[in-house]
């Protein structure tokens, strides 16, 4: 199956609808409901443990159309956070002591508000993470991006699924591996990933297919050896993230006949120990339109934060987000399988 060149939405796919995705995920009779599984493990209901990460998804515009994208992002998407909503985010952040701002997309750097969010978050004394697809650094209009990120001490969390070009290009598009390597070399050249520079470069790898990720520590060692030997590239750490059975990865699963097998793989690998580290417990996720979610995956499934917690950034009140109940569904098996998975990598 060739990689899609357009988003689900642009292709008019039924899976562009979050409601259709939820219907599929919740109607699989052979899959025990996630809520029943965590109840059986004595972990129900899942609750927040205090917000440590203020994650802002600034929109769906991206210069790539990755085959596994849970956002259905791409060059054909126009949903973007406005300056007004960005300012509301910063006003909300200022009223808290949340230490980390995590900016994601799409390619978040393509939003005109991105640099404002970085500068204001740093002015407030918060750490900032940019979830970067690497190739964006090579766009002519972004020639000063790496320098901007370095000047503000932004941690770069960069996607690189594999040290093999065939696997990376199969997931992220033809030629992306070469661009990613070039971008990593440029980041190393200005100090990112180098000991003592204070500029943190973290790599993220997702499996290139319907299987679970490798053990994080072993894969980090493998990447470190291969990237240095073959390209002279260094980095600080690597995170493994499981592919969520939603959006374009769900399309891949359905079209290749892997959906049922993958869901059973996630269910069979359910790990109660992985539940305690999942990101929804310490993250608030803000959508491009200012709506609030427990995580970026719930955001893409249009499952807003619930159970009495504030629904929009303009109603943000950190007092209501200390121990609020988290909204869950069968997609949550993606974060609790094996060693667990979150934006921060393995959870165990």
């Amino acid at each position, binding site marked *: 199956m060739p990689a899609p060149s357009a988003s689900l939405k642009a292709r008019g796919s039924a899976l562009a609808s979050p409601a259709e995705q939820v219907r599929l995920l919740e109607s699989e009779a052979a899959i025990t409901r996630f809520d029943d599984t965590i109840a059986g493990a004595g972990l129900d209901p899942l609750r927040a443990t205090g917000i440590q990460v203020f994650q802002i998804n600034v929109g769906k515009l991206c210069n790539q159309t990755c085959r596994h994208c849970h956002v259905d992002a791409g060059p054909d998407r126009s949903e973007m956070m406005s300056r007004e909503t960005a300012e509301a985010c910063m006003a909300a952040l200022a009223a808290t002591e949340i230490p980390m701002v995590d900016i994601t997309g799409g390619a978040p750097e393509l939003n005109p508000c991105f640099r404002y969010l970085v500068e204001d978050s740093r002015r407030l004394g918060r750490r900032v993470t940019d979830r970067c697809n690497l190739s964006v650094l090579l766009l002519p209009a972004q020639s000063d991006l790496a320098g901007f990120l370095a000047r503000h001490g932004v941690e770069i969390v960069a996607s690189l699924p*594999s*040290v*093999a070009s*065939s*696997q990376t290009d199969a997931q992220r598009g033809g030629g992306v591996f070469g661009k990613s390597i070039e971008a990593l070399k440029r980041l190393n050249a200005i100090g990112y990933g180098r000991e003592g520079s204070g500029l943190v470069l973290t790599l993220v790898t997702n*499996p*290139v*297919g319907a*299987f*679970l*990720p*490798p*053990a994080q520590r*072993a*894969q980090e060692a*493998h990447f470190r050896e291969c990237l240095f030997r073959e390209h002279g590239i260094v980095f600080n750490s690597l995170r493994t993230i499981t592919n969520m059975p939603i959006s374009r990865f769900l399309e891949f699963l359905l079209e290749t006949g892997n959906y049922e097998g993958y869901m059973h793989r996630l269910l069979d690998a359910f790990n109660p120990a992985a539940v305690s580290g999942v990101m929804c417990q310490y993250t608030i996720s803000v959508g491009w339109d200012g709506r609030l979610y427990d995580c970026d995956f719930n955001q893409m499934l249009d499952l807003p934060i619930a159970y009495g917690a504030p629904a929009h950034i303009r109603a943000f009140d950190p007092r209501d987000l200390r121990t609020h109940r988290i909204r869950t569904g069968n997609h949550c098996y993606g974060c609790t399988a094996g060693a667990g998975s979150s934006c921060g990598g393995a959870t165990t």
Partner: protein
Amino acid sequence: MDTYYHPKDLAHFADLGKGNPGLWEKFMAYYGAVFAGGALSEREKALIALAVAHAVQCPYCIDAYTQACLEKGSNLEEMTEAVHVTCAIRGGASLAHGVQMRNVATKISM
């Protein structure tokens, strides 16, 4: 039964323990210890298992260790090279036995 091999049968591997739980438990403990990281990494051991699976031509093992190799972080190029190792050793073993052929032929020939 319309075929001797069925993919779903792999999930019933543990049923072998019903005949003799003691031996099964010993085997599984040994199996788990063999595949744990040691002087060789789990990733390297999975690649060896994949190569051996092709040598013994076990479809269950090929299925399981293809998935295991991917989940340990190997890629298709590495896995293909592992299968070529199988091929080289199997083919080489046939050729090496050619020495016996030559010994016999030499002995009885003029």
